[in-house]
């Protein structure tokens, strides 16, 4: 059942620019560093002994922002496909469980973001090699900085998906999304329990892995809670 729903969702996001956005996000993040290093490469290389580490840290500075912004756009976009002609009623009158529909939508979004994360790793690696940063490529660090933010952002994805699917008016989830972006911008000053801080991978234990693990745990809980609430409601 979930497999069928998944295929239907994949069909529905065609020609809507979802894949374009999934590529644009990581491309933009790396492009910012292309500009940065293009303008003042010598200065930046002089900042640290570990040129690869410094470069990846620079890339990583914009990853959480792109991720949170991307989540807000994609979730709202995905909900708008059903909202546009109120296709919810048509969809839910099919032999499907509401929970299944909700999970399929979450899965499609998570998959898109995962692809974005992989692309981010690829783009960063390519650009790093192009810059000729020297020394061995720190694949571990590259992996952590590309994929951990995705896992750490799962609670935000779950929250935004819930907001987008249960709101009559898409202004509500967009507002939540914009607030989330602002919170992520000020993540430095946020307490550790705020989910918008997690994609920055900064936490009191100084261990990025904790942010990712917390994201997976809290994300799963929030998806289940959102799903339960979605299934309980009357269809729009």
């Amino acid at each position, binding site marked *: 059942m979930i497999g069928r729903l998944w295929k*239907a969702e994949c069909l529905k996001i*065609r*020609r809507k620019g979802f894949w374009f956005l999934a590529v644009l996000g990581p491309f933009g993040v790396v492009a910012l560093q292309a500009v940065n290093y293009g303008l003042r490469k010598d200065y930046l290389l002089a900042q640290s002994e570990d040129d690869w580490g410094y470069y990846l840290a620079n890339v990583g500075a914009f990853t959480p922002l792109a991720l949170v912004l991307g989540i807000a756009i994609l979730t709202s976009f995905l909900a708008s496909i059903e909202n546009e002609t109120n*296709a919810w*009623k*048509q969809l839910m009158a*099919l*032999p*499907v469980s509401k929970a299944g529909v909700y999970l399929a939508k979450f899965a499609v979004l998570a998959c898109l973001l995962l692809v974005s994360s992989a692309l981010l790793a690829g783009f960063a690696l390519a650009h790093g090699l192009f810059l000729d940063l020297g020394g061995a490529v720190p694949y571990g660090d590259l992996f952590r900085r590309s994929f951990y933010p995705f896992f750490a952002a799962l609670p935000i994805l779950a929250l935004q998906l819930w907001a987008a699917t249960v709101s009559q008016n898409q202004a509500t989830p967009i507002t939540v999304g914009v607030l989330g972006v602002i919170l992520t911008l000020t993540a430095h000053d946020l307490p550790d329990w705020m989910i918008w801080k997690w994609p920055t991978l900064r936490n009191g234990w100084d261990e990025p892995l904790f942010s990712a693990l917390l994201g997976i745990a809290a994300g799963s809980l929030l998806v289940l809670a959102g799903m339960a609430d979605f299934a309980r409601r*009357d269809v729009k």
Partner: protein
Amino acid sequence: MPYVVETKQLTKRFGRQCAVAGLDLNIAKGEIYGFLGPNGAGKTTTIRMLLGLMKPTSGTIHIFGKDLRKERIDILRKVGSLVESPSYYPHLTAYENLEAWRKISGVAKTRIREVLDIVRLTDAAHKKVKHFSLGMKQRLGIAAALLNEPELIILDEPTNGLDPAGIIEIRELIRRLPAEYGMTVLISSHLLSEIDQIATTVGVLAKGRLIFQDSIEAMRRYAQTHVLIKADRGDRAWQCLLASGIRADWRDGRIVLADPSDERVAQAVRTLVRDGFAIYRVEEEKRALEDIFLQMTEGKAG
């Protein structure tokens, strides 16, 4: 006799407002059930509950003899529906829209061609639906409802927004469904004439209550038309008719025949002509649905 759709005391409240109250619908197999009522009577709310889109506040729904609360997915496998305005994904073609729904219901891919053919959209199959006319979108909605070869098809105001040719076409299509495919049809409308032409059984909903549920023949007796005669020296003509034993009323300068049957009308005209009254008009007065509703509600009260 087992009913395809059977509701017991079906009720839906929105806050303090009662949208549907104590509905006992009975729809037998192979019927075209006309669900009639003015806008806001609760038709769409009822249909949404029948499809499991809304949970009833109280009461039960059985479809194919199964409890909707417990076996919703099983039931919906054999139900097709078009609720309110047609829903579609405008950025996809007609074919892709149907494919998106087919993937979920899991019927054979060839079925898409069949339903496109039934609603005559084959030529437009690969056009994006956003470029469709309203009539085409409506037909696509019906195609979607037919996709899973349903045993029960629920159509909410399916002729809304169609031009006369489109209305006739859809009507012909609906009429074919029980005979050719063994389907049971529930069709809602706020137009008596619409229901009158295709339904075999009628349920009338007013202010959330089912005030009438019977065969179309019984409905027609309620909806009986009046025949009005306008004649030279009208009041004298009226008295002349009464004198000849034809029951009639005098209203707004016209004679209203109590019995609109063909023989009576012919008799009345013959009488008037014979007695030298010039007849200007013999016309049928169609009764507004509201009047019939009023009569039904009064009938219930009295």
